[in-house]
């Protein structure tokens, strides 16, 4: 930061603002049902949540680095870092959860027209519209470019037909940003366009997908001759792949930091270990095995965070080793899965229920998290795709038509 005095006074100001505006209840570890999601059907778990959301919204802190004219906080990267640190320090919950905020917004800032920015960004920052993402398709999977959902030219409109899968909570969202095929004559990464679609449009239907965790956070979204105004095209016609990559970059960052977004267990894993791993059986020292595995996980987990910090510091001094960010998703998602397996082993037969009347809710939610997190190494680019990318871009190994 250029001026150390300014920096110090900015930090002091932020700290006191947070202390004043973020209620104590909003500084507890987040619980899924208390998350603040935006949208037309916005619902606050309690008044404190509403208060925190509204204060952050009015100050532009739902999107601290976005320009103020679009409803953001207008902070510099350095200032935003200070805000993040201070929020982390106090334990402030995110004031708004939204895929528009995390993924669409950053891409609109790069690729959107002025009209699109003015229309959509403030509504995102203010939590007025909740967004879903429409990338994957049943037959595409990792091969994203193989998408089949068609948008045909229909005068001032596109006519969209097809379906998108893994649209997170599309059943609760207002709009969806989609990749659609507008031309299938050339190579498949060409001829794709990026469209914004109002889910209230005629011809849209949505079906939840039951997961192995028993939840249905994901949906399949069907489009049957849905009319979408051409104003809703982001970027060039047939040029949606560039927009998509920008969004994907943000999604992968998101997946890498998924844990910090997710519900925090009420008991940390060390307390869990201490509570449950006594000398439980004839081979009582078998807790040594879990102890060693837990230590290994915590060591690796710290190292993942330290690697993340190193990348952030390199950004600050503008000397970025561009290979390092490629590693984050692969490493961090693996580690979350390791942790979950250790939790199952600590809990033993106490922890085998996804929902049971006599099992403390706490354990059930841990097991649900285990099941849910199985998707972390798949969604947002499988670990296999990540390894392909590392091999190609970081190690520059010769191509064998390895996909990414």
């Amino acid at each position, binding site marked *: 930061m250029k001026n150390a005095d300014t920096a110090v006074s900015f930090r002091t100001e932020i700290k006191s603002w947070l202390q004043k505006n973020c209620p104590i209840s909003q500084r507890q570890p987040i619980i899924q049902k208390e998350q603040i999601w935006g949208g037309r059907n916005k619902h606050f778990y309690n008044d404190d949540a509403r208060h925190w959301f509204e204060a952050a919204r009015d100050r532009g802190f739902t999107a601290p680095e976005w320009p103020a004219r679009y409803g953001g906080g207008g902070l510099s990267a350095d200032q935003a870092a200070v805000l993040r640190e201070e929020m982390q320090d106090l334990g402030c919950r995110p004031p708004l959860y939204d895929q528009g905020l995390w993924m669409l917004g950053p891409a609109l800032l790069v690729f959107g027209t002025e009209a699109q920015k003015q229309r959509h960004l403030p509504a995102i920052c203010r939590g007025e519209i909740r967004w879903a993402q429409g990338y994957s398709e049943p037959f595409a999977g990792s091969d994203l470019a193989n998408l089949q959902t068609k948008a045909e030219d229909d005068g001032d409109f596109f006519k969209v037909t097809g379906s998108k899968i893994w649209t997170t909570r599309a059943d609760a969202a207002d709009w969806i940003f989609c990749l659609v095929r507008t031309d299938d004559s050339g190579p498949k990464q060409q001829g794709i366009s990026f469209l914004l679609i109002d889910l209230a449009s005629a011809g849209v239907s949505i079906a939840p997908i039951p997961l192995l965790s028993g939840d249905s956070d994901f949906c399949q979204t069907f489009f049957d001759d849905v009319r979408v105004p051409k104003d809703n095209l982001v970027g060039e016609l047939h040029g949606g792949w560039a927009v998509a990559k920008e969004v994907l970059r943000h999604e992968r960052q998101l997946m890498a930091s998924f844990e910090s977004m997710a519900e925090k267990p009420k008991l940390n894993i060390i307390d869990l270990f201490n509570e449950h791993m006594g000398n*439980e059986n004839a081979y009582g020292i078998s807790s040594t095995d879990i102890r060693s595995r837990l230590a290994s996980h915590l060591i690796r987990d710290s190292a993942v965070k330290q690697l993340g910090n190193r990348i952030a510091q390199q950004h600050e001094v503008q000397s970025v080793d561009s290979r390092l960010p490629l590693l984050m998703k692969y490493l961090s998602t693996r580690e979350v899965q390791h942790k979950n397996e250790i939790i199952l*082993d600590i809990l033993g*037969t106490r922890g085998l229920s996804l929902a049971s009347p006599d099992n403390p809710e706490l354990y059930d939610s841990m097991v649900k998290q285990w099941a849910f997190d199985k998707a972390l190494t798949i969604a947002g680019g499988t670990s296999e795709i990540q*390894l392909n990318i590392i091999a190609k871009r970081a190690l520059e190994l010769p191509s064998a038509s390895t996909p990414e």
Partner: protein
Amino acid sequence: MILTSEQKLFRDSLESFLSSKLPIAALRSLRDASLSTAYDRGVWQQLAALGVSSITVPTTLGGAEFGWLAMGAVAQEMGRRLSPTPLLSSVVLAQGALINCANLDQINHYLPALLNGDEVWAVAFEERAHFSPDSVSTAMTPRGLSGGKCMVLDGASADRVLVSALNADGQSRLCLVKTDALGVKQSPSRLMDGRQYVAYEFSDVPESECDWLAGGASGAGWIQVLNQGMVVLAAEMLGGARELCERTFEYLKEREQFDVKIGSFQALQHRAAHMYSELELSQAAVDAALVGFDSGQGDQCAMASAAKALANECFQLISDEAVQMHGGMGVTDELDIGLFLKRSRVCNQLLGNTHWHRLRYADRAGF
């Protein structure tokens, strides 16, 4: 495993019965059934009629004496379909304990109803959240049998339950109690594998309701029953792992991404080859343990622990890889892959986790 032609015939008839009566859909409907249901008792009677309850029972006791390899083959077929049956709980563990730990009068009195499927039993031997069969605090007091047991497989559907407990002399024995006896309380739950597990609370169950198994070798006999339970469970687990391998390899051959079959990607090929190697390696250990039960040769505890340790690791590896290789579809409840994944984690904890078995193996091997 190398079966005799008789054993093969038996397995094949079982296979077609299970395919029609206990496909994976049976497990799915069980998930939504009331907690008091552990399995379809009518189907079980038909299975008993087919001889499933008498596979390893000596002919002198009215059994088929088909041997443990045949038992393993049946368990494997059930594992392939995640069939909810009381094979492990009522036949291998409970009936096995009756035969191994009871006196002849008791055997003659109780066995026929088990063999023909009229009765089903459970065994209550866990008091802690990690397998520890030697930790027994449930005891016969002057006021009756008291204590708590958890993780009783299929317990709420059983007519009687064998309880590991200290008798009036302080010796650890098995005590047979009717599940509707005075002072017996059951709390069933359905774990993530969709199967029923019950916590039992015994409060001053009168001595008159307790029939203590009193065979000569009840200590060693019970250990051998546990060994057999471990190996039959391991065989069932490998059935699941084998089914997953087959489904996953098929998927690799069918699914296209980037204009080629994903099974042509070498990284996936190597992982698939590794899965298959681990499967057959574990199968060899399970088969060896089954053969060991039939022959009585070798260290039965060591072979059982080897089999269960490998089956744990193998089923966990293969179910993880199956989910990952199926991509997004792997984490949905539409495919059955997730059902096997969840079963693998329950089986890991049942009858000893990998580390427990490694340490027992080390004990047996003398280090």
